[in-house]
């Protein structure tokens, strides 16, 4: 039996011999990381810092050099009614549409989460709106809500008159929200259906020993187990809904007046009609802060609930 005895000198030599290999390995790792670093620097950090720099500049018209304005653009935001109007509308719009999408998505998922004929076809049909282009939906909405469009034809046949959807701020808001809900409810449906299918049947079988009431099972088994997925879906949809521009812009251009002017539309107009790039950039940072506050408040609320319930 031989025993390999390594002297200190041999060990040091072995480590030294290994070093170049490790160096090569480290070097290769750096090369693999480089595209991600370039991507992040080029497409995330640079635009972010460039926008920050722009937000400190004032534009005095196209073709003229930008002037340093300090925090003037941020100061303007606080005195601009259009900013707070657009912000308030966007927050309200996101809250209402996401809430409805979640409720409808969950309802549809509960309906479809059972065995019945043509279940696959029904699921596919329910998902179809998700694949439509939002701008296309906006333009489709112009036809659907038109004076002689299908909705008004139906309303006239039933009630004797249609609705001038775009000529009233509230009906125009409802028209936009309906299209948004139509498109994004399938997204909620898809995620929540997957969640429902992951709940073991044994839990329901055990519960049936105590009750046959479906609502109780929904309240005490389904919803608590779906809560993480519901939270995730709300979060994803909330971030998207806060950024919305396509459907309201294509359908109403933010109108009538400013009735459907989301914050993204406000920023777009400021940047590309007025070419007030500095102000638009400052507004973007304000919006970034608002979105971060809303999202973090939502996450913190979820954690607080979890800790509070654990304490119970």
């Amino acid at each position, binding site marked *: 039996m031989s025993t390999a005895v390594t002297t200190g000198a041999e060990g040091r030599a072995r480590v030294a011999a290994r070093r170049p290999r490790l160096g090569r390995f480290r070097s290769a790792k750096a090369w693999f990381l480089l595209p991600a670093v370039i991507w992040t620097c080029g497409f995330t950090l640079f635009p972010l810092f460039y926008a920050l720099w722009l937000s400190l500049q004032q534009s005095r*018209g196209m073709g003229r050099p930008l002037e340093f304005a300090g925090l003037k653009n941020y100061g303007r935001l606080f005195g601009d009614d259009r900013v707070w109007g657009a912000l308030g509308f966007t927050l309200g719009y996101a809250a209402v549409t996401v809430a409805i999408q979640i409720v409808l998505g969950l309802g549809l998922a509960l309906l479809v989460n059972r065995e019945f004929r043509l279940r696959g076809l029904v699921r596919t049909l329910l998902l179809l709106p998700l694949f439509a282009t939002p701008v296309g939906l906006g333009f489709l909405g112009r036809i659907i809500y038109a004076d002689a469009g299908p909705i008004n034809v139906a309303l006239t046949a039933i009630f004797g008159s249609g609705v001038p959807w775009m*000529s009233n701020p509230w009906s125009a808001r409802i028209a936009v929200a309906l299209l948004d809900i139509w498109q994004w409810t399938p997204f909620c449906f898809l995620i929540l259906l997957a969640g429902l299918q992951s709940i073991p049947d044994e839990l329901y079988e055990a519960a049936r020993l105590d009750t046959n009431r479906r609502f109780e099972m929904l309240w005490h088994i389904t919803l608590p187990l779906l809560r993480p997925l519901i939270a995730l879906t709300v979060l994803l949809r909330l971030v998207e809904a806060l950024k919305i521009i396509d459907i309201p812009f294509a359908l109403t251009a933010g109108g009538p007046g400013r009735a459907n002017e989301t914050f993204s539309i406000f920023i777009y107009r400021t940047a590309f009609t007025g070419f007030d790039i500095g102000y638009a950039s400052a507004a973007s940072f304000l919006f970034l802060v608002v979105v971060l506050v809303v999202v973090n408040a939502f996450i913190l609320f979820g954690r607080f609930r979890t800790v509070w319930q654990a304490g119970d």
Partner: protein
Amino acid sequence: MRKAAFLASAGLMLLPAVGHAEGLVTRHPDGSIELKSDVGDSITFPKGTLGSVIEDAWANGTKPYDGITVSVVTLNAGPRGAISGGILPWQKAWEELSGQKLQVVLKPFNDLAPVIFNDLFTDTGAYDGFVPPMVFLGDMKDKLVVLNDYMCDPRFPKVFTNEECRISDGAERGMSTLMPSMQPLFRWGSDWYAVPWDADSHILYYRKDLIENPEVQAQYKADTGKEMRPPQSQQELLEMACYLNGKDPLGTGKNLYGVMQPGALNSQLFDWYKDFADSWSTMVGGAKDGFRETYHFDPDTMEPLINGPGNVAALEWMKQAYACGPADFASIDLGGHFNRFVQGEAAFAWSAGDIAALAEEEGSKIKGNLGAMVIPGSEEVYNARDGKMVHVDQPRPAYNVFGASWSGEVSALSKNPEATYALFAFLGSPTMRVWNVKWGFDGIDIGQKADFLPPNGTAKLETYLAGGFDKGDAETVSQAIHDNLAGPTFEYFKIPGAAEYNLALEIALQQTLTGQLEPQQALDGVAEQWRSITDRLGVDSQKEAYRLTLGLQ
């Protein structure tokens, strides 16, 4: 073998197609050059009208701009739609004539300003030229080629007459080709930046089968005690429109609307307002008459005048007029406005020359019944000298050059400015106007002297008839547009930031029309925004630009 046979037969099938692309240009023995359009007709340019570069090259059997690619941006309305429809039918013929590869980049209206301005002001230079609305000129001019020398250069297609080219002052050129009211649109001071092409102005259209119908007139008289006639004032227009709204006086089975106007955002709502508001707000027709009475701003202080009593009263009037139209007005865009009026849905519409052309196309229900006149003025006018509204017995008609007047401009960043200019000069040449007059779909509205029927111009009635016009309609429209442009027209707003000023006004107008704001409240808000825009862009530079457009400097 089978593969080879297949390729050979495919090649044979392709041959006629390739051959079809050629042969759109024919040089005749007398030196004239005939070009065929995609529409299936042709135009012959007499010798000396296409410029020496093209004509000499063709005489020598070469192509003058061979190997050069020219890229131009314009409005996307398709090959048979407004503006793009004026270029695309000639794209192949022009490529064959010039040897250029012509890229026509089409953008929807909302994208035009961002695309053009970003290209120019980031010094990208992706495009050689643009066909934008002239309201952008104040913003774009510093990045455009001054065309003064090109426009009388015999190397290029002829735009102005030889006599006009002998005039050294650019501000005075073109007066015998263009209507004097239209001429300033394409220049800044004495520098020309655009080759005149489209000629927008707004007139009042009405259905003659209603307004000039003795039975309808008699019923109107019996019901209101007033005469039904082509309206002599805006007050008369409103009374007639609201009387007819919801009625079916011709027994068609479908109720009429009084007016058919666009109310959607991005459909030039500000122009449909200014068409009327100007005559409520100024007594004598702008600064050009010597009395410094302007519409948009006080030219000494740049204080906005938009919330003055005349404008507020005009907005009240507009609200009432829109209430005598479709309830879904806020969803009616330009296309809807044109189509629904030519489908006979309404008694009145105030609009650009597009309606005149579209009314004559297949499917129109008002062909032969198209009434047209200068937009009447208001009986109530704000007298700025006395600071109060006054009544006038003979309202001053609302002469105007409102609209886009799309015309070709050459980018200062272009590597091929001459080739680009040659294209725009070709499109804007007097010879080409015959084609523009003939076809309505291209949206190149009539407004140059060559477009009007005698005695106002040199157009031939046969040209209109060949394009499908009814004789009476052609005569009526030619006269009305000429009369409008011959009058003292209101200010054309093209100072830097014009799009932003107009957007602020457009949003406020829609807020008022949909009952969200009262007229005074809405226009006070506009004035506040206009002040803010002016402050940001610089009061002094804006004042200088505004005064220049008014001819005060």
